[in-house]
């Protein structure tokens, strides 16, 4: 983890979501804040708020009058005049506000319904099997970098129609956007130019050679009779790449991390595959990777806190999912949890567009893993590392395979 910011000493008044303590284990922090605040403030990033209860997180998610989605990654750089203006924003539709948001979201929704997502399942399953086959003969390896990390990269590359061989580039782009948010604004702008350049090459290639993928779909798409602007297409492609990779990688990795540490859950899930549907939702609840963000749209009083236009607000869906006011024994993973209104994919009109895709990938990744390696554990718990920032998940996950692969 980078340490461009000083360590946090007081989470209620000086929190920082890239702090290594937060990255390693944010749950005690949120629990403390739920009791102390429950809206924390930090001067970092030019002023940031953090509500930690399910009730307050929901309230913000549903309030598009006082909060704008124009930028949804908290960093030192707020959107400037050179960025696409509201209500489109830099990466539509996640950065868009209503009513425009609804128009562009409706355009994309059909591509993410169960039917087209199910069509990607055989590809995903074969990919998982191939990745596991490459671990043949190893008694220990890194489940984050050798397995979980490759799955969403290849699925998204296929979905967008990018060359599979470019997958190694995506990691760098994602680190830029999501993890190195505490870099100075000028450095971040230079990093974004490289990403924009890559997208321009892909768009040009798809214009010259149209095919059946999401990039060609965006190039052909029309809203109210007009084609999308070049920046709009690029912004949406960037969004789909960034949002579809680290998030799912994190969910798969965190689920494997849990199973590696809980032999009873591991054995139960291997023995009772019919539990997979509720288990997937429970892993998503307990280890939800994504914390969203908003900008305060206008000065107003939020439950006694003076919110100012332009303040950042972190929207921690993972904290909402651990709120004891909504979930019984929230810190405990119950594979058969029957009542589970988790908010891992957000709430309200910005509900994660790719939630069906993410669920399919997580389910298939766990099914294939458990079929081959029903018994495994962390080989070196101290060596596990977690990404900080707004997408949290294991980035190093060394596991030992117990008792050899399944026959």
């Amino acid at each position: 983890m980078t340490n461009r910011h000083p360590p946090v000493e007081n989470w209620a008044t000086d929190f920082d979501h890239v702090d290594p303590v937060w990255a390693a284990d944010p749950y005690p922090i949120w629990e403390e804040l739920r009791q102390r605040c429950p809206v924390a403030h930090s001067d970092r990033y030019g002023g940031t708020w953090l509500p930690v209860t399910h009730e307050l997180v929901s309230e913000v998610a549903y309030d598009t009058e006082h909060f704008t989605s124009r930028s949804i990654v908290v960093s030192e750089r707020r959107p400037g005049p050179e960025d696409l203006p509201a209500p489109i924003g830099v990466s539509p539709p996640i950065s868009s506000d209503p009513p425009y948001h609804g128009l562009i979201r409706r355009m994309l929704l059909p591509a993410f319904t169960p039917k087209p997502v199910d069509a990607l399942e055989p590809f995903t399953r074969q990919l998982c099997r191939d990745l596991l086959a490459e671990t043949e003969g190893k008694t220990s390896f890194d489940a984050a970098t050798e397995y979980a990390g490759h799955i969403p990269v290849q699925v998204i590359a296929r979905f967008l129609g990018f060359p599979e061989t470019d997958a190694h580039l995506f990691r760098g782009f994602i680190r830029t956007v999501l993890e190195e948010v505490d870099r100075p604004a000028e450095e971040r702008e230079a990093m974004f130019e490289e990403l924009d350049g890559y997208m321009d090459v892909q768009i040009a290639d798809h214009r010259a050679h149209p095919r059946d993928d999401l990039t060609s779909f965006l190039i052909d798409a029309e809203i109210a009779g007009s084609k999308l602007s070049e920046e709009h297409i690029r912004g949406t492609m960037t969004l789909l790449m960034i949002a579809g990779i680290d998030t799912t990688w994190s969910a798969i990795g965190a689920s494997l991390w849990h199973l590696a540490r809980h032999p009873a859950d591991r054995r139960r899930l291997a023995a009772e595959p019919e539990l997979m549907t509720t288990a997937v939702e429970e892993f998503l609840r307990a280890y939800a990777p994504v914390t969203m963000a908003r900008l305060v749209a206008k000065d107003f009083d939020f439950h006694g806190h003076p919110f100012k236009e332009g303040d950042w607000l972190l929207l921690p869906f993972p904290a909402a999912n651990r709120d004891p006011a909504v979930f019984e024994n929230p810190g405990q993973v119950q594979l058969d949890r029957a009542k589970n209104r988790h908010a891992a994919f957000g709430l309200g009109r910005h509900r994660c567009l790719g939630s069906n895709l993410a669920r399919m990938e997580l389910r298939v990744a766990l099914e294939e893993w458990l079929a081959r390696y029903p018994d495994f554990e962390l080989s070196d718990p101290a060596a596990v590392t977690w990404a900080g920032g707004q997408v949290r998940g294991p980035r190093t996950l060394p596991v030992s395979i117990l008792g050899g692969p399944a026959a």
Partner: protein
Amino acid sequence: MTSQTFRVHVDPEKCQGHNRCYSVSPDLFDLDDLGMSSAVGDGLVPAKLTGQARLAVDNCPEQAISLTEVKP
């Protein structure tokens, strides 16, 4: 065993297409082209699917689903 009859309803203003209800019970819910859910037919829940209907209510993140008893 009482013979209660229930009707399930999805509030289209609240549904955001999480598809949790459809995953719990594809017999009770239908998805449109955008992935938004609605009750199948008139929403009457066959007695054997009452449990699934309750699960759908309990798992909708947007609290968009309601289950009401139909008075005979």
